[in-house]
């Protein structure tokens, strides 16, 4: 949010690009991605599958070195830290990740207490200190001591995700990267986990970067939302603003398709355009990445894309949807 932007950011991503070799040659999985996360701020990174959200999350977590660009966590170069084991240990104290799949993210052979302790093993804390932290973290996520000796298969999906969150907060990190934290949970459990994450953010003063495709999740948890398409950020701003007045056609498309009602309200031209299969773009492409599926494109979108910045909101589009424009049932979708 604007008022926290002045503080030193916890996370500073600048010009992050990641090139991958795909079936039809090279492509940008992330292209010139830049953003910041302020202390205790929750930022969401949304986009459809393949938009590059996970690529960005992996670069930030030091799991994959980017082709170019920098990632700084509280002033420290993540890419450099991640190169050595000692650096990764240091990094683990500041940045922790909550994974999407609470089944695959917990070793099935270990009891809950050990699973949580894992993130502290190389922290240099003594055994009693670690145990105290583990018990505290498990208490925060609402798992009572009865469950400490259980193994993952004896827990429900929601409980497993609580264990994953406890493991992530145990080292008291400054930033939590949450990769689709509730995507594999029942709808009834999703709300509880989101509430828990929100509580943790207030209580532990930890910043969060939430990767999600579910816009409902984003609205519940994020102060600020960034929309990604084909590796590029196309729109960003305060979450209520982005949801109420999306300017980029891609954002509008995501909002439409988020609800059955929105899908009905979608204009035919947009429906046809969004359903198009878009060919991969050449590496040197300078046009709008969304143009092949955009119902508002013109010739200039092939070569150029305008970036518009207003207070608490920015977007990269030559033909943004303006707030005064009649867009079917916009209010309903975001209500």
């Amino acid at each position, binding site marked *: 949010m604007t008022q926290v932007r002045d503080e030193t950011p916890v996370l500073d991503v600048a010009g992050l690009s990641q090139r991958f070799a795909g079936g039809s040659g090279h492509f940008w999985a992330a292209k010139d991605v830049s953003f910041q996360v302020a202390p205790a701020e929750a930022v969401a990174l949304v986009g459809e599958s393949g938009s590059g959200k996970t690529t960005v999350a992996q670069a930030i977590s030091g799991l994959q070195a980017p082709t170019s660009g920098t990632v700084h966590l509280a002033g420290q170069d993540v890419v450099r830290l991640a190169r050595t084991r000692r650096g990764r*240990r240091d990094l683990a104290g500041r940045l922790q990740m909550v994974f999407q799949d609470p089944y695959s993210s917990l070793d099935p052979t270990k009891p809950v207490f050990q699973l949580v302790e894992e993130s502290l093993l190389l922290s240099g804390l003594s055994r009693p200190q670690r145990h105290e932290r583990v018990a505290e973290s498990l208490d925060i996520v609402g798992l009572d001591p009865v469950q400490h000796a259980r193994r993952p298969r004896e827990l429900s999906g929601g409980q497993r995700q609580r264990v994953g969150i406890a493991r992530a907060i145990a080292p008291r990190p400054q930033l939590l990267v949450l990769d689709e934290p509730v995507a594999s949970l029942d709808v009834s459990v999703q709300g509880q986990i989101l509430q828990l994450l929100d509580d943790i953010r207030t209580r532990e003063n930890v910043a969060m970067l939430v990767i999600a495709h579910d816009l409902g999740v984003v609205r519940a948890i994020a102060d600020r939302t960034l929309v990604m398409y084909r590796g590029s950020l196309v729109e960003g701003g305060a979450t209520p603003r982005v949801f109420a007045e999306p300017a980029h056609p891609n954002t509008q498309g995501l909002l439409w398709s988020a609800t059955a009602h929105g899908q009905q309200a979608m204009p035919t031209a947009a429906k046809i355009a969004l359903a198009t299969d878009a060919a991969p773009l050449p590496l040197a492409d300078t046009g709008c990445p969304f143009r092949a599926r955009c119902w508002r494109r013109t010739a200039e979108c092939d070569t150029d894309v305008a970036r518009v910045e207003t207070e608490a909101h920015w977007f990269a589009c030559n033909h943004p949807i303006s707030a005064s424009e009649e867009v079917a049932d916009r209010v309903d979708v975001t209500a």
Partner: protein
Amino acid sequence: MTDTMPTPIQPHPTPRSVLRRVPPIVTVASAVAVVLLLWAVLVPLLNPADATAVDPARRFTPPGPDALLGTDHLGRDLASMIAVGLRTSILMALTVVAVSGALGWLVGAVGGYVGGVTDNVLGRLMDVFNAFPGIILAIALVTVLSPSYSALVLVLVLVTWVNYGRVIRARVLSLRREEYITASRMYGTSLGRILGRHVLPNTGDLLLSISLVQIPNVMLAESTISFLGFGLQPPQVSLGLLISSEKDYLQTNAMPVLVAGAVLVLACTSIATIGLYLRGKER
């Protein structure tokens, strides 16, 4: 808070409920294995220490109170000979399985986890060992090394470790994509610790089930090689050696060959049955 409620946990299986689900053939196999094990352990304790010593005065004694199953052409007590042969066989199989399991696990786990060039080199190495027919390679090697107990162990390890390596590698290839391994890597955990803390516990079931199939294989291989004269040498006692030395008297005194052969077959099939049952249960 529905998700913090204790979830219903599967009741712990009682011995009786486990027995009911085990197929009869596996129950029979387990019983046979126990009987043979008792034979190997108890018979030498009941018989005098020199029961397996050569005693020309006692050759071809028929079964009776003196010698439960009679004696062979050297006057050795057959029941004791088989017990000692079984011990040799089982001990050698356990040694070979332990060493080749450790070697195969290490090569498979490191190759599968590290990937890239390391995996390629280790994979080709396993292909090479896998390409030779085991028993022929074993005979060739043991001849070169001159037949002895330790040479036989070494050779059997060399022809069996690949069975572990390949299966463990395949499992580790999928394990390393698990997010808990990714998490562990993120924490700066060393390769050795990841292998020990996560990969070993998550491949333990495979080690057990491969071993249960490998034990009868090794017992059979040891007997075959010893029978052919390339393995253990007298005065060492082995089921293969016993069959080999008694086969010339098959027409006059068939008991030693028949009993030793039957024991070998029963031992191998019962352990293999249990092993295959356990392996099938994992799937």
